[in-house]
């Protein structure tokens, strides 16, 4: 089974209490299903799900985007740079 790397930031990192983790992926996994998996693993993410965006290999990705082994997924709460 292939794995994907998850990287958490800001409030999401505080909730899951880790910076990174690896999860198993299957052929049909999309950005939307990855997020569902993460919420199942870390129910604390649930209240912020609607405001979270996921990046795949450093690009913001649509929910339907296919995820494959070796991808790096960023879990990105609303940003506040500047």
């Amino acid at each position, binding site marked *: 089974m292939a794995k994907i790397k998850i990287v958490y930031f800001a409030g999401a990192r505080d909730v899951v209490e880790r910076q990174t983790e690896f999860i198993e992926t299957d052929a049909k996994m999309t950005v939307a299903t990855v997020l569902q998996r993460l919420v199942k693993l870390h129910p604390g993410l649930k209240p912020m799900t609607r405001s979270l965006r996921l990046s795949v290999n450093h690009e*913001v990705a649509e929910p339907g985007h296919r995820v494959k082994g070796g991808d790096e997924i*960023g879990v990105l709460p609303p940003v506040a*740079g500047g």
Partner: protein
Amino acid sequence: MARIRTALTRGRINPSRAFREVQDPGAGGIVVFTGTIRNRSEFGKVDGLEYQAYREMAQKKMKAIAEEVAKKWPVKAVSIYHREGRLKIGEVSVVVAVSSAHRAQAFEACRYAIDRIKTGVPIWKRERVRRTKLWVEGKPIRA
């Protein structure tokens, strides 16, 4: 081709250096925007703050914004710097410097770049207010 410089940095940002970098014999105007840490926010009196960045992606996005600006406006040079880590009140958090043949383009391009930085670069801000640390609620990142 416009000259482009971007960096995410832990060290202090020097706006004068950004200004010098974008100086150009063909420029009739240079606009330098400097963002600084304010002592108040919606949470109250701010004692300091911390920027957390998704380093690789933030650097990539800052460069992409500078390139986009250079494509949209006939600019001579663009420099963008953003801090990460802990900052004190009054410190410079971001600098956007743009030079162009005419001032209108330099103003527009600079304004566009700072607005894009706020919505398109994965950087988060945590303020220290009354001894608690609070993530500033920003906007969902846009591609």
